[in-house]
Structures are given as structure tokens and as C-alpha cells.
């Protein structure tokens, strides 16, 4: 059977999720999009995602906390942080806390797809569609 990558995207700006959803679905991911951290965490409690993509700077719960909660519940999940307000300190903290990777906004969907492909590889998903990620050598 074909295993599809389960991806959760969390960003308090709904436009981000709206844009990422099709971009990731194209490469064979099942994407769920949230713009409220609370709801997203609740969903994480119910279902195991392979990859969680989260913004860092959000209103009530920040991305670092989401990272911690997700990893607490599913230690194998790969968490990718995206943010427009990256600093060395936050990036390093996220990495120290087990984030898989860190992307600064603005980024192209391809950048995220590349990181997701790597995460999938690390998870042992051999069959991730890399067709759209073909612009790497």
C-alpha cells in the first residue's frame, strides 16, 4: 500500500497554510492546516503526524512550545520551524530542543519541500515523491 506523508502545518496567518497546502499536496503529502496553536496541539494529541511545520511567533502559544509538546507526544515526529523573525538565539534553541530544521521567511515552497524530503528520508520514507524537488543535483 502507498504510504503518504502526514503533515501538519501551523501558522497564525491563514494565508501561509493556504499557500502551502497545495504545494505540499503536489508532492504526495496529506496536509492538515491550522491557524490556531491550540487546535493544532489538540489534533496532534489525536493523530500522529510524520512532520509538523510550525511558525514560531504566534499569539497565545509560541512555536517553541508547540515543538516541545509535539515531541513530548510523538518523539519521532520531525518538526520544521518557519519564521519571519528568526534570530540566532531562537534558531539555536529550537535546534537544541530537537527541531529538525529551521527556515526563515520569506521562503519558496520549494525550500520547504526540500527540507520535507530530507525529513522524510530521515524517517525512512523511501518513496517520497521527489519529482517536484528535482532542482537539486
Amino acid at each position, binding site marked *: 500500500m502507498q504510504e503518504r506523508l502526514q503533515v501538519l502545518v501551523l501558522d497564525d496567518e491563514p494565508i501561509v497554510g493556504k499557500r502551502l497546502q497545495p504545494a505540499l499536496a503536489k508532492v504526495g503529502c496529506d496536509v492538515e492546516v491550522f491557524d490556531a496553536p491550540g487546535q493544532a496541539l489538540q489534533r496532534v494529541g489525536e493523530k500522529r503526524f510524520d512532520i509538523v511545520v510550525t511558525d514560531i511567533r504566534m499569539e497565545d502559544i509560541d512555536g517553541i512550545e508547540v515543538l516541545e509538546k509535539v515531541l513530548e507526544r510523538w518523539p519521532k515526529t520531525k518538526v520544521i520551524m518557519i519564521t519571519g523573525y528568526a534570530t540566532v538565539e531562537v534558531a539555536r534553541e529550537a535546534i537544541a530542543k530537537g527541531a529538525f530544521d529551521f527556515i526563515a521567511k520569506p521562503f519558496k515552497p520549494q*525550500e520547504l519541500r526540500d527540507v520535507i524530503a*530530507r525529513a522524510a528520508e530521515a524517517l525512512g520514507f523511501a518513496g517520497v515523491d521527489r519529482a517536484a524537488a528535482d*532542482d537539486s*543535483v
Partner: protein
Amino acid sequence: MGGLFGGGFMALTWVNAMIVVFLGFVGGVLSGFTGSGGAFFMTPGMMNLGVTGVVAVGSNVAHRLGNNLMGSLKHAKLGNVDKKLAIFLVVPALIAVRVAVWINGRLLHVSSGHEGGGEGAVSNLYISLVFVGVLTAVGIFILRDALRSRDAKEAEGPSMRVVNFVAGLHLPPYVTFPVADVRVSLWLVVLVGLVVGYLDGTVAIGGFVGVPAMIYLFGVPTSVAPGTELFLAMFGGGLAALSYAYQGLVDLRLTFLLLLGSIVGVYVGTYGTKVVKEVLIRLVMGSVILLCVLSRALALPVYLRQMGVVRFAPYLDAWFNVGSTVMLFAAGIGGTGLILILVVRAHIAQLRIHSTLQVSDPGLDS
């Protein structure tokens, strides 16, 4: 034709001597324009003239002896050479050069034993294959990078994934290089050194791999990478040249003729980089490289036939050769012509915008 000695050295006539000078000029322009050496044009050009591949490579490497020396001294003065990195790269590169020259020398003496002047065919085929293989990759890489960076304003680099992948590998021991301000796995450095040395020794195009590898794999600043590469080429290329000379595979006459054209060419090409947009530089370079590759690929069947691997009528050799030569010259003349036109046009434009544009804003004086 028929060589004077050993079969590899051709008799020089005024016509083919002039062609070699022209090859040198085009190679020089391309090399000055792209900063990566013009061997990708000169070597196949000489092979099309009937020079044995190994001798073409040897003569070409010898012609770079002086240039590399002066170039690296200049870079060293400007502080654009990471000496530590260069030394770490030179050691494996020298070993690889020796191996590459040894392979080339051995293959030359492999007699294919089939009809039709098979001597050197194996060697020619080998050189051509390495040439085609490496330069296809390089050409596509450059072209795609150029095309992509044209529409993306802040391109992230040709392939951040490779960079990230390499960065993700953890291969101790790590070595820190102070001038370039990078920390790289020793294994990676040795690997790059070996590849560059091998390519320098086999087809004299190590720079094509060395510079991008340093920039994208090691994270060396773009100002330091070419200087360090030249430093490396000074030793690697020098050793290759002398090794080929020892084996009797350098035709000094060709070297001299190449020099006659290439040094003027380099000046023209370097001037070109000042007035031409970078994207265009890459487009020209990528296209010329790919055309050179195609031209070389057209010559492959001839060698295969000489070795007896494929069979077709020997008179077809001439057709393949002509096709290959025409394509190569079309690439060279097209590329160089375009650069020359751009240079002249830019020069005229610069003469025209002579006066400084002055705009005063009196409204703000008070």
C-alpha cells in the same frame, strides 16, 4: 599526416598552426570571461585537428604553467588564497594527478589491434568520455543556475539541498581554515582534492569542479575560492605538465601557439566580465560548454570504430570528424563573437555616458 615521432605529434602547417593560435584565443577569451580555464575548448579543438588526446591535454596543461604561477601570486598578494586549505587540497590532488597521468600513459599504449590506426583510440575515447561526462554535468548545472537566478531575485544558490545535505553529514575529524573562515570535514577536503587532481591530470578541467566545490560544499567565500583553486592548479597542473613531459606527451610547439592566442584572449575576456551581466556570462558559458560536449560526443563513434567495438564504413569517420569540428568552432566563434560584440558595445556606451549626471535639488537647501 602521420606523426614525426610516436604517432601523437602532428606535422605543422601554416594553416593548422593558425588554427591552434585561434583555439588559444577563443580559449583565452572564454577563460578570462568565465574565470575557469579554457581547456574545455582548446583540448577538443586540438583533438579535432588530429592531435592525440593525451598530447592535446599535455600541451594544454603546459601552456597554463606560467599563467597559473602569475595568477596565484597575484591572488596571494590580495589575500585571496587560503594557504592552509590549498595545502590540504594539494596533497591528495598531487596523488590523483600522478594516477591520472599514469592511466593516460598506459591507455595510450593499449593497442586495440583492430584495423584503421587503432593506436591511441582507447586513450582518445577515455579522455573524450571523461570530458563529456564531467562537462555535461557542469554545463547543465551552470545553465540551470543561470536560468533560475534570472527569474528568482534572491536566489538561494544553485542547490541548497546538496549544501544542506553535506552540512548534515558528520564526518570527523574537522579542520578549520582561517582565511576562508570555514570548518570542513577532512574527508570532504581529501575527496575534493582527489577529484580535482584527477580531472586536472586527465583533461585539465579541475577548476570547473574545484571552485564550485569550495564555494558550495565548503562554504568558502567567492573571493577566496578562485585564488585557492589557482594555487592548487599551480601545483596540480604543474605536476601534470611535467609528468606528461616526462612521458614524452607534451608538444611544446602547440603550447607556444596556444600561448600566442590565449593571453590576448584572457585580457579581452576579463574586460568582458566588467561590462556584461553575470546571468549572461553564465548563459554563454553554459551553452558553449554544452556545445563543446556535443561536439566531442560526435567524435566518439570514430574511436569506437577504431577499437572495433562498433562497425561502420571507415569513410564515415570523416563525416563525424567534420561534424564535430564544425560544431566546436561554431560554439567557439559564436561565444567569442558574442563576447566581443558585448565588449565593444559596452565600450562605446561607456564613452557616451561620459559626463557625470548631476542633479541638484534646490528645494531642500533652505
